[in-house]
């Protein structure tokens, strides 16, 4: 439980951070809240030669109102997200879900950017980023680029962030009053990772579902959208039977893992049940 020796640098700007990444190549690892990276280092599952600490770059923290979107700095802590009035008003699903991440210590240190860049499919926020259709802003040696959530999560613990890039900002569209939302997190003890989680957003119009989005946590190596369920609901009546029928398709196209907390078939079952519950709550049905 003691990490291997490493060097430590603390850039004062994103440009310096990018430069440090360029200098050290795959030896370097960015450090945000450290709540995913340090456990890996202590178990010696990760042994970076250089740790580049993003903790002293003020630009990376905070939530900005940017017209139709909120721009959330990558280093904004979970707790800051939960407490932020802009987030609560315009993207309540994000505040609601982030409040369920870990425990207070974790939320006081862990960051939104770290949680997304780490790309852990068992993390709650990647699935939420999917249904929110957020965009990630990456900065590298040749400037900035933007990647849609749908393209961001590549594989197990692998995202679109290049070796020489820093995730600087998460851009989330504002959602108006017509949207209902819910994150159903299923775990065995409070404050643990989700065995399965389901994020749902529903926009209703005249008793029908105008649009439904469903994101799945821990149902494969990446966070999935439950496209079959979403498709079945578009334009359908927002009643319990319709939602339940649509939820039956929630696990289609997923590839859930088996571990001590759940075998794959049980996860599929949970995904269907939790999807129904999340949709019921999100649609007010």
């Amino acid at each position, binding site marked *: *439980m*003691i990490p*291997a*020796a490493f060097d430590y640098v603390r850039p004062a700007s994103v440009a310096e951070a990018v430069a440090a990444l360029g200098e050290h190549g795959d030896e370097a690892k960015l450090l945000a809240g450290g709540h995913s990276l340090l456990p890996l280092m202590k*178990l010696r599952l990760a042994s970076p030669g250089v740790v580049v600490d993003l903790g002293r770059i003020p630009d990376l923290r905070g939530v900005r109102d940017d017209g139709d979107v909120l721009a959330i700095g990558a280093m904004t802590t979970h707790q800051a997200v939960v407490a932020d009035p802009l987030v609560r008003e315009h993207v309540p699903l994000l505040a609601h879900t982030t409040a369920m991440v870990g425990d207070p210590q974790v939320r006081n240190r862990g960051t939104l950017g770290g949680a997304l860049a780490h790309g852990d499919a068992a993390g709650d926020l990647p699935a939420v980023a999917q249904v929110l259709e957020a965009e990630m802003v990456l900065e590298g040696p040749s400037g900035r680029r933007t990647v849609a959530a749908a393209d961001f999560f590549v594989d197990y613990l692998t995202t679109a962030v290049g070796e020489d890039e820093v995730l600087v900002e998460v851009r989330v569209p504002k959602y108006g009053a017509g949207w209902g939302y819910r994150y159903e997190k*299923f775990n*065995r*003890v*409070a*404050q*643990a*990772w989700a*065995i399965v989680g389901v994020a749902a957003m529903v926009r209703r119009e005249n008793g029908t579902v105008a649009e439904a989005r469903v994101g799945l946590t821990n149902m494969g190596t990446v966070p999935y959208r439950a496209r079959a369920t979403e498709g079945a609901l578009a334009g359908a009546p927002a009643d319990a039977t319709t939602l339940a029928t649509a939820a039956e398709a929630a696990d289609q196209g997923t590839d859930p893992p088996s*571990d*001590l*907390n*759940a*075998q794959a078939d*049980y996860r599929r*079952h*949970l995904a269907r*049940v*939790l999807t129904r519950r999340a949709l019921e709550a999100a649609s007010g049905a």
Partner: protein
Amino acid sequence: MSKIDPEEIVEEIEESGQLGHPDHHVPLVGQAPRRKEDARLVTGQTNWTDNIQIPGLLHAAVLRSPMAHARITSIDVSAAREQPGVIAAFTGADLQHHWAGGLPCAWPVTPDMKQPVHLPLAVDTVRYVGDAVAVVVARDRYAAADALESIDVEYEPLPAVIDLEEALTDATLVHEDQGTNRAFDWPFEAGEVDATFDAAEVVVKRRYFQQRLIPAAMEPRAVVVAPIAAADEYTVYSATQIPHILRVMLALVTGIPEQKLRVVAPDVGGGFGSKLNVYAEEAMALILAKVLGRPIKWTESRSEGFQATIHGRGQIQDVEIAATRDGRVTGLKVQLLADMGAYLQLVTPGVPILGAFMFPGIYKFDAYRFGCTGVFTTMTPTDAYRGAGRPEATFAIERIMDDLATELGMDPIELRRRNWIEHHEFPFDTICGLTYDSGNYEAATDRALELFDYDGLRREQAERRERGDRVQLGLGTSTFTEMCGLAPSRVLGSLSYGAGGWEAASIRMLPTGKVEVVTGSTPHGQGHETAWSQIAADALGVPFEDVEVLHGDTAVAPKGMDTYGSRSLTVGGIAVVKAAEKVIEKARRVAAHLLEADERDLDFAQGTFSVRGSPEASKTIQEVSLAVFAAHDLPDGMEPSIDADSVFDPENFSFPHGTHLCAVEVDTETGFTRIHRYVCVDDVGNVVNPQIVEGQVHGGLAQGIAQALYEEAVYDPEGNLTSGTFVDYLVPGAPDLPAFVTDRTVSPSTTNPLGVKGVGEAGTIASTPAVINAVIDALKPLGVTDMRMPASPERVWRAIQEANASGGSAGQAATGTTTLTAQAGPEASA
């Protein structure tokens, strides 16, 4: 100018608080004064072993086997020795000649028990993942940890032995030299067992499983050894429950004479039995300090704690109960397979044997057969874990009572009423030869039912069943007793335990009237400093604040048997009472002399000796202390000391009991179980400090509930511990537990002068079956009849699926059979 008024001076001294106010002493026993030790414990500003710094301290790190079972074909530590900061590195072979003996097992339960040699560092063969194979000593712990990576070990894998029944085929031997994986067979029989079962109207037969548990004390293990090399003397600081036993054992393991060893248990952050042991790292640190002549520290990482600190439980229990159709239990048969793990640790084999006496629980019947086979496996050694044998036994009897009630179509509480010992029958000699001295199961149960609103919950259960609610309600009962306050030395002797069960206390009266209470019972969170202060303050009539409790250091408290088995108060606390009585008798002699009165004419109350008939002629015991210190004017021939020692050896165990009722809500769609209401009414006899009792009950409940719903050490077929971190080994926290409703009845123990019984393990022992009974009760209409622990959501969900698939009798086929025909013998039901 002013006249000296002695009265005034006394008053002044008294007001200054120096002597307290002995004549206003309010009894403290039964109160909950603020715990003396908590400020330092909860802030961590104390001498936890890992906080200890000594000039020149070196740090050890241990390389552990990644294999469950393998031959070490080669091992090379030379590269580690070259690493920066490294002072030394040793293999098992390097240190082999330093061991005077293996790590001890003090409980050879049978004369022919297999007791393989257990060296602190493995030589040639590793037998569990986590077995120590090499040790590095470096200037700091980081260098030591890094250097482990440059040790080269080649292993030739051998098959893992994970399954207890398979182990008994001896296809793979854990210890080749022993020729078998069967460590011992321990039988017990009383009454006409076969005839009883042959004649039984009803026989219920079940197989229950006790999963392995990981104790996970908050403070990891740690040891620091400070040598005085020139004198060949050593101080061993260890996060241990048992400094006194450790001292003896380290002398035997290392050959260092006992009188050259001082063992200190500084403040210790929890143990639950896991620190009731003699560990490889303790012996190793001592030998390293001897070899290198430098102080050595080793602190366990949490990962090491999962693998290399003892595990608890690990049993397969085949249980059969015989009864009449109207619900009278006539006999019980229990056959255990107990998982020893790879080696026998300090009391490993004794744990299931302690349980043997508790399977009959609170019930009366005339035929009992018990057998236990200890089985070696290639997993972490097991040993005592909170309750040690008694939770396993209580689970089995309380589960099968519920299963029997179901078979008979009887309310589980009614079935218990028909079979339990009634309160007028105490003292009661049990079928196991124990004498339960006191108790009142009726009172505890009635109170619990009332607090629980049993009838109301049954109604709600019926309603939910009626409407097919997704969330079903289940009610579970556990009416338990346990034997604790270990233990009468004679009984331990008859069970082949290697030591006695007494406890020591000394009281030292200081010149200023303050009091030092020295106890041999070593706390690791229980609050001895507070409770012992209450006892001593009451006995001596001195202020609570004037009492200081010293413990955990063999140089300060040279005699002791330490803390486990809910023994501290019932044995160690009584030693304090007895020592106080001796102090008072000595002080009485001095007081009589000073008051020029006859000893027989002195009353002692509120800390004051006064002459009967003329109360103004008096001396406080604190004044006597000062007079004895000065020793100017003592009775002829009297030694100038009123200090006293006492060693108390109890004549009997204490038998706490209680009724625990649990209501669970089970989400039948996901399998998730939530505790809806938990009521326990415990009878722990008289109570010294109700807050400490409450704390012990709450913590105990949490750990018992954890076994029922959350925790399990899981090994894969290759013998890897797959639940190796807290991500997979789920320890519940406050949000997972209900607000417990606790109450007490008081049936004082008749076997000690305070009338107290142990409480350290009660909650753990009682709660597990209450929860599982509740889960099964919730799912009964769905056809679920049994549930492995922990009752994880997935397990519950699968049980429901299987019940659906098999038309409503899941679990049954897999776990046992029931016969309801008259005259059905065990063969017929097998």
